[in-house]
């Protein structure tokens, strides 16, 4: 199955203006926003989030848990790939073909899904370049950071789901849709990547009781660790609250910084994730602080040494 990954995640929320404040500060561009109806929030390549009121009649039914995720819109490479998904899933469930060509169905645990030919627009933007001894990444005279440089989400990276039954989830995403398991945190669950996307993961499942089913977090890729640090620092300076990070995960190698949000889940900045192909041998490690990160830091307000020794001259 030539699936790329989530193009859009749709939420039904109970505080639309709060979500607008959060997502615009996070760096997504609002499209068609109104406080009454919500709007779309777009990353640089056209992927993004759609925020609607919880009681918006156009949304698919809510999960019984109160979780605000209402729909994952998954992008595939072309019409042939879309037809392949339609044929496969129509074997045992209703798959609707909407007027705009989108497929609509459910996975085996009641998560609502749509499939479409991906709307991603490839970006012509360089990634972060690093100078190392004898291995310069940047041209001479090119500076690595400026205070006001852009640090915007480039593409929707991944969604992490609280999932009551991991075997059922794997049975659907791996065995029906052809996702590959890249690594597994035992005690939590597997990381998966679809066949048409080399990213370490577009989905990660965490085993939970049924009353928790829903989205645990979502993440957008930034252009590199410096952009991630700048974007997160800007959030902190505006009074938004970090949940975890900044740090760097082991599985996937991605830099991370998670923020709590009015979407009822964490929203992560992510950068420099590993890519894989089918020659990759999946790893396994027990879920816990050691396996979850190579290092973990904590933000603080800007500070500089200075002022001289006690009693000495200022400056």
């Amino acid at each position, binding site marked *: 199955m030539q699936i790329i990954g989530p193009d859009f995640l749709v939420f039904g929320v109970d505080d639309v203006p709060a979500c607008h404040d*959060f997502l615009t500060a996070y760096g997504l561009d609002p499209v068609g926003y109104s406080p009454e109806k919500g709007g779309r929030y777009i990353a640089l390549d056209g992927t993004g989030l759609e925020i609607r009121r919880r009681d918006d009649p156009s949304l698919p039914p809510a999960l019984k848990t109160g979780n605000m995720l209402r729909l994952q819109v998954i992008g595939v490479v072309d019409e042939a790939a879309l037809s392949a998904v339609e044929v496969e899933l129509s074997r045992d469930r209703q798959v609707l073909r909407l007027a705009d060509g989108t497929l609509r169905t459910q996975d085996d645990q009641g998560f609502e899904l749509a499939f479409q030919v991906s709307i991603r627009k490839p970006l012509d933007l360089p990634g972060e370049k690093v100078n190392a001894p004898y291995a310069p990444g940047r041209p001479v005279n090119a500076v690595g950071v400026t205070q006001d440089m852009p640090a915007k989400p480039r593409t929707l990276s991944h969604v992490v789901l609280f999932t009551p039954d991991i075997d059922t989830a794997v049975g659907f995403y791996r065995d029906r849709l052809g996702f590959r398991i890249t690594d597994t945190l035992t005690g939590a669950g597997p990381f998966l990547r679809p066949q048409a996307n080399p990213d370490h993961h577009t989905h990660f499942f965490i085993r939970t009781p049924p009353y928790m089913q829903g989205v645990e977090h979502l993440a957008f890729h930034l252009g590199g660790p410096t952009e991630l640090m700048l974007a997160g620092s800007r959030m902190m300076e505006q009074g938004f609250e970090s949940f975890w990070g900044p740090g760097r995960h082991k599985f996937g190698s991605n830099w991370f910084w998670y923020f709590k949000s009015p979407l009822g889940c964490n929203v992560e900045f992510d950068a420099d994730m590993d890519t894989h192909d089918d020659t990759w041998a999946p790893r396994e490690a027990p879920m816990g602080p050691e396996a979850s990160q190579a290092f973990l830091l904590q933000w603080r307000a800007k500070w500089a040494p200075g002022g001289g020794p006690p009693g000495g001259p200022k400056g």
Partner: protein
Amino acid sequence: MLCHLADLDDGEARGFEVPGLKAKVIVVRREGRVHGWRDLCPHYAGGTPMAWKRDAYLNGARTHLACHAHGAWFDIETGACVQGPCLGKRLTRVPLRLDKDGGIHLDR
């Protein structure tokens, strides 16, 4: 003193740093009563802070305290989790004292 009653509208919540406490104290005023809770969601061991932005502790309808990491809702009066990942657990109450001038203090 954490704050003055006049600085807290009915239906409003605010978080206060308290020297010696690793987590803030949430003060929430509802129907004329003031409640104090540790800013520690019981979802994970040890607890994690709950606001998505400074003082943003309530859900959209302002009916519950909410943890904005994973969407848990807590009864403002009892601290009991009524929806989300820590169902069956509750927030830790912080006893408060109201002085005659309307100042809100930790009762310790």
